[in-house]
């Protein structure tokens, strides 16, 4: 297949999947097969694009022009390629997990669940491949809208209230800040295409550039830089597979991915570091990391703790990008990858615990590791990756970020990373410790077992991947190097 066909089929495939899921809703096994086949096919298509990108080619697809300067235009560059690979691969694993989770927890309206999930993935691929801000914006909004029914899946009043916060914050920030920022960029530079070396060249007042940068960062509410992070804890009312794939990977990563992409291809790091003396973004991200970590430490609810941990980890990516040196940007992009696998493992584990025991609080987890060894082992690996201890992927990205911070002697960044690593340790390791080494009751009898097989399978795969990525990071590293080579 030629690359244009590949791009269009990557975008359309989940939508075709939706049709089949809707058609086969009477037979649930067939319906789930449709989801799985679609996700496998999507992986095949996305990974078929990989060799070309690794050879330095950027496959493109022009759909149509709306006005002379607004176009629906896709282009697969290394950063988008990496993001699409992560999203499509994890969709498969997450689908396996969903089958186990949704069935054993007896959720209603499962067809709707799979349909909107596929739509969300289609939007994510659209974000990954977009070649200009306008296309990015459209798919960004699609992603918000398609995940709303997933967040409010249970349909109770409390869930609807949380759903309103979710929708309200994400839509309001994107319309009030993101869109005006896009139009402003277009007004200043005459283009909104993602361009190698940025679109800003010439003299601009630093205040203009800083305002734009902040408008983009906060307009992309999905990146959850404080204070626009409130939607993420709200979204935790969703079923766990949604929290796992969307609110640890697809949605939030779409946010930081967009910010990174804008900094690299719209502003260009060299331009930014020339023009900005005080890097506001760095401080905002640093503050978010620390505050979110402290809140995570104080939350007893497991999913809430994971949500705040996500907020803090997302700001790692922003912080690393805001350092504006190649090596830290490499770290930022790798962190998108590492955190995706690590955090989805943790969410999977949390869901597995809930499915097997209906426990949701950290304080209830004493001794659970003996009864659910696979799940808790995976949880331990995920935690190590969050903290950044080898042999997990989290170590790699943190290494690069720290190196970047040391290179330009940003002591602020170094301090933030060190403190937050300590905080990470403080809120993850105790869970692992009590799970394995503290007895919940005097008798050593398990009243429950591991969660159903698909769940355990999924959580094991992602945990394994977290380790594998530490030993074999060649492909992502190559992509990142391509990105650094061309973007800076």
């Amino acid at each position: 297949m030629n690359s244009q066909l590949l791009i269009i089929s990557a975008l359309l495939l989940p939508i075709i999947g939706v049709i089949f899921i809707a058609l086969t809703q009477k037979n649930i096994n067939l319906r789930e097969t449709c989801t799985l086949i679609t996700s496998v096919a999507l992986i095949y298509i996305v990974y078929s694009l990989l060799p070309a990108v690794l050879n330095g080619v950027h496959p493109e697809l022009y759909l149509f022009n709306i006005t002379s300067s607004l176009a629906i235009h896709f282009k697969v560059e290394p950063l988008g390629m990496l993001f699409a690979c992560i999203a499509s691969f994890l969709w498969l694993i997450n689908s396996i997990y969903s089958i186990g989770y949704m069935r054993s927890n007896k959720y209603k309206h499962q067809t709707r669940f799979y349909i909107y999930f596929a739509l969300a993935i289609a939007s994510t691929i659209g974000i990954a491949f977009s070649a200009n801000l306008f296309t990015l914006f459209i798919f960004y909004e699609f992603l918000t809208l398609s995940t709303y029914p997933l967040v409010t899946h249970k349909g109770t009043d409390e869930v609807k209230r949380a759903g309103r916060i979710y929708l309200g914050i994400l839509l309001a920030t994107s319309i009030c800040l993101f869109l005006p920022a896009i139009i402003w960029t277009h007004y200043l530079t005459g283009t909104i295409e993602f361009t190698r070396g940025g679109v800003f060249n010439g003299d601009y007042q630093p205040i203009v550039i800083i305002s734009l940068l902040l408008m983009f960062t906060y307009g992309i509410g999905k990146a959850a830089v404080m204070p626009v992070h409130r939607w993420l804890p709200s979204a935790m009312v969703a079923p766990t597979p949604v929290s796992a794939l969307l609110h640890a990977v697809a949605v939030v990563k779409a946010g930081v991915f967009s910010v990174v992409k804008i900094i690299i291809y719209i502003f260009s790091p060299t331009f930014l570091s020339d023009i900005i003396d005080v890097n506001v973004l760095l401080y905002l991200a640093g503050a978010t990391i620390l505050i979110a970590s402290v809140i995570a430490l104080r939350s007893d609810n497991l999913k809430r703790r994971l949500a705040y941990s996500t907020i803090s980890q997302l700001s790692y990516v922003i912080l690393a990008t805001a350092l504006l040196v190649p090596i830290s940007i490499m770290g930022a992009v790798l962190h998108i990858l590492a955190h995706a696998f690590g955090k989805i493992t943790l969410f999977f584990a949390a869901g597995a615990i809930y499915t097997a025991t209906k426990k949701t609080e950290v304080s209830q987890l004493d001794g659970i590791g003996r009864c659910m060894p696979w799940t808790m082992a995976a949880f331990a690996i995920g935690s190590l990756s969050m903290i950044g201890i080898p042999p997990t992927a989290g170590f790699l990205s943190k290494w690069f970020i720290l190196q970047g911070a040391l290179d330009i002697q940003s002591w602020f960044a170094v301090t933030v990373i060190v403190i937050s690593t300590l905080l990470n340790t403080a809120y993850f390791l105790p869970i692992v410790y009590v799970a394995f080494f503290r007895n919940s009751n005097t008798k050593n009898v398990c009243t429950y077992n591991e969660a159903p097989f698909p769940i355990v399978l999924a959580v094991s795969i992602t945990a394994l991947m977290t380790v594998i990525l530490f030993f074999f990071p060649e492909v992502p590293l190559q992509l990142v190097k391509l990105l650094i080579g061309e973007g800076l």
Partner: protein
Amino acid sequence: MISSQLPALQVVLPLAAAPLCILFHNRTFAWLLMVFVSLASFGISCALFNQVLAENAITYAMGGWVAPWGIEYYIDKLTTYMLLIVNGIAVLVSLGARESVENEISSDRIYLFYTAFLLNLTGLLGVIITGDAFNLFVFIEIASLSSYAIISLGKDKRCLYAAFRYLVYGTVGASFILISVGLLYVVTGTLNIADLSQQLVNAENTATITTAFVFFVIGIAIKAAIFPMHLWLPDAYTYSPSIVSTFLAGTTTKVFIYVLIRFIYSLYGYEFSFFHESFDNLLMIAACGAILYGSYRAIKQDSLKRLLAYSSIAQIGYMILGIALITELGLAASLIHIFNHAFIKVGLFLAVTAIIYSYGTDSIERLAGMAKTSPFTFVLFLISGLSIIGVPLTSGFISKWYLIKASLEAGYWGLIVIIVFSSVLAIIYIGRVIETAYFKPEATNTASFNNKKMPHLLFLSLFIFCFINIYLGIETSLNVDMAFQIAHELINK
């Protein structure tokens, strides 16, 4: 040659057709005539459009009396742009009108309704096409009087009050316009708009001319429902028969804004208009007031028609905003929005027409869960609703894109905040309808609804409007390029 008589035919055709409705006294005939005439009229405006593209501007001396003594019809790009909007809407609305009209207007008056409807179309087309200031006033009155009549035809008795109120406001507005035309005649001795603009350049800048300008702007502001002179609009749109609200919402106010643009740019010249009495600031304040007030009030409404009426007030604000920026881009944005909003709002009102036809109510609360019973109506409402919010890939986005860009270019930061904020308000008021229709459980008393199926022609017409809304959001060469050309010509005249 017939083609040289097209400007006259554009007005004469609906005018001549109107009495036929009374003569034949048959409601089906009247409807068919309405559809046929509006189609023919649309055909004429397309032909005129082609002529204008070739010849730039056409003048037509009515009855062979040459201007400035006789009445002259003046057709340039802006004229045909507006003619296409009004005629296009007339065709589509009359196509879907039949069943709804029979449902909402008592059957012995239906032929009268079509008579007045045709006269209203005549008036609007005349206002657009005429190049004579007094003739303009005559057509304004034809359009207004006929609209008072069709508003009062509703079965809901409150429409009488609404029509009367509109009549009082409208007459005040019309008198202001007449006074203004009179004053201009006193100073220049001519009524021809092209001639007037020549004379005004040479005339001394007296208080009379300024007074005429002020009177005119106030008169038009009442007619076009520019905040704070919008008070007649919500009632008129709410209580009139749905088809009437649909047609008026798409055409009347836009035509009067067109008149405002004509007076500012073609008659007075924009140097006079804007650099004189800080008129632009006044316009801008009115526009911002309209946008915020309209959007805010729309949130609070329970009646769908009233909600859309307030939304219209806000949208009129956008159009005025573009004009008040006094830039080419701003004017173009305003013209683009006139075009786009005409089709968006008619799409929305037509969806409400279908809802009222099916359920006999437009109360949002009573529509709970109705999206299941009439899925098509609500999907089409949703599409137009997204467009009015300004979601990308709909025509509303294109309008907002250019408006924001124009505000940026003019350096007005506050305006962007206002535009963006009112988009958020639009999300709330459209979202409320969608949430009620889609996500609220169905009310138990649905049996009391007459629950008729949407007529096919109404569906067709509604579908075409939604199609246009999306088409104009994806392929903009039709209206955007035209609007830029017009703006360029008007500013650099």
